[in-house]
């Protein structure tokens, strides 16, 4: 009976057109399962057994990536309910709390996920440093990682303004006033970021576009480079 169902599910032309190999029961089919799948093929087909040990990496990089993934999903859902307008944004926060089903959990997941990501990316960097994983031939990928950390901070900061409450407004006011202290370009740069002299509607829409469009695309691209280089640089750093 079970065999029969299995045959119907796995042995038809549709299934075989999607997954060209059979069930990954032996080494060759396992290789194919990874190699012929777009989402899995960033992995090598085979890895060192000791690279699998949790204590080698503590999973910190992967956790950071998962958090980014969760933030993308919850972020898209939040975009259905949020309008970046100074008269509407705060009301939308209240609606998420009191009117939208599971709206508060959605916002909480996005907020705590964001805080966690900042911490986890930093911890990931510490792990790579303390295991000397940045050394040749991984110098460039370490640099990409540092830029990713800066981008994470930028993402978190641009998102911080969006609830348009006192916490958001004054935190961002402090940070943009900091930009002003830059020599030569400080004033102009602050004007560019804020879209005026005061944090208002122009700042809100600029931060919003950066937060939901520009920075996520940039980070996605950098993550692709980061993962690609892990493969090209020979996987997890190992003692010689």
């Amino acid at each position, binding site marked *: 009976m079970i065999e029969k169902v299995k045959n119907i599910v796995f042995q038809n032309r549709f299934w075989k057109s999607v997954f060209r190999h059979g069930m990954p029961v032996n080494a*060759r089919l396992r290789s194919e399962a990874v190699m012929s799948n777009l989402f899995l093929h960033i992995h090598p087909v085979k890895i060192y057994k000791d690279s699998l040990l949790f204590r080698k990496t503590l999973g910190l990089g992967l956790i950071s990536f998962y958090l980014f993934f969760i933030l993308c999903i919850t972020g898209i859902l939040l975009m259905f309910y949020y309008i970046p307008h100074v008269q509407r944004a705060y009301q939308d926060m209240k609606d998420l709390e009191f009117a939208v089903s599971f709206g*508060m959990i959605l916002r909480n997941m996005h907020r705590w996920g964001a805080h966690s990501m900042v911490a986890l990316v930093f911890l990931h960097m*510490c792990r790579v440093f303390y295991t000397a*994983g940045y050394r040749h031939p991984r110098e460039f990928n370490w640099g990409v990682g540092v830029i990713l950390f800066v981008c994470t*901070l930028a993402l978190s*900061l641009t998102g911080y303004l969006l609830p*348009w409450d006192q*916490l958001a407004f*004054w935190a961002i006011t402090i940070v943009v006033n900091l930009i002003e202290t830059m020599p030569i370009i400080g004033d102009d740069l602050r004007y560019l970021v804020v879209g005026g002299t005061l944090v208002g509607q122009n700042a809100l829409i600029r931060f919003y576009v950066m937060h939901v469009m520009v920075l996520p695309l940039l980070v996605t691209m950098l993550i692709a480079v980061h993962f690609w280089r892990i493969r090209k640089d020979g996987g997890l750093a190992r003692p010689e």
Partner: protein
Amino acid sequence: MPVSDEQRMSEQEKDLKSYGLMNLVEGETPHVGKEPEEMTTTWPHLLVKELNLFYLVMIFIMGMSVFFDAPLEEMANPSVTPNPAKAPWYFLGLQELLSWGPPFWGGIFVPTVGVIILILVPYIDRSRVGTGLWFHPSRRLYNILFTVFVVVFIGLIIVGTFMRGPIWGFYWPWEPWPTH
């Protein structure tokens, strides 16, 4: 000796290497001198672990979200300045530095130079000993310097978050702030 296709296939499965020879170049690959026995297949060994880790992350974030609500204060009002006004926690270390002297040094110079030094780290440390090992003894100096950086970075955030009150005055976490 001629080898049949079947034999070749079974040999391939035996040593589990699926690479083919494409070209000869000078230099070592990262895989030189490593035996196939040290390796295992990604499916299922790595993939199962990755999936399990995803479940853990989801459980943690969902759990946090059920029990703790994200903060939301009064609606933004440019005419009411909170005292003290604080940046997000990850910038409070910088805000603390800012309060020590000219804003340019704490706000722009220190973070910029910090990021540049971080990017340059692999070009400064050219040693090959201890790569991939936690806290290798040959790296004691590097580890101490980096730990100092981490402790100062986190320490400043803690001071900025928990020990700064009105007009950025110093208060212990248990100390009440003056009302007026």
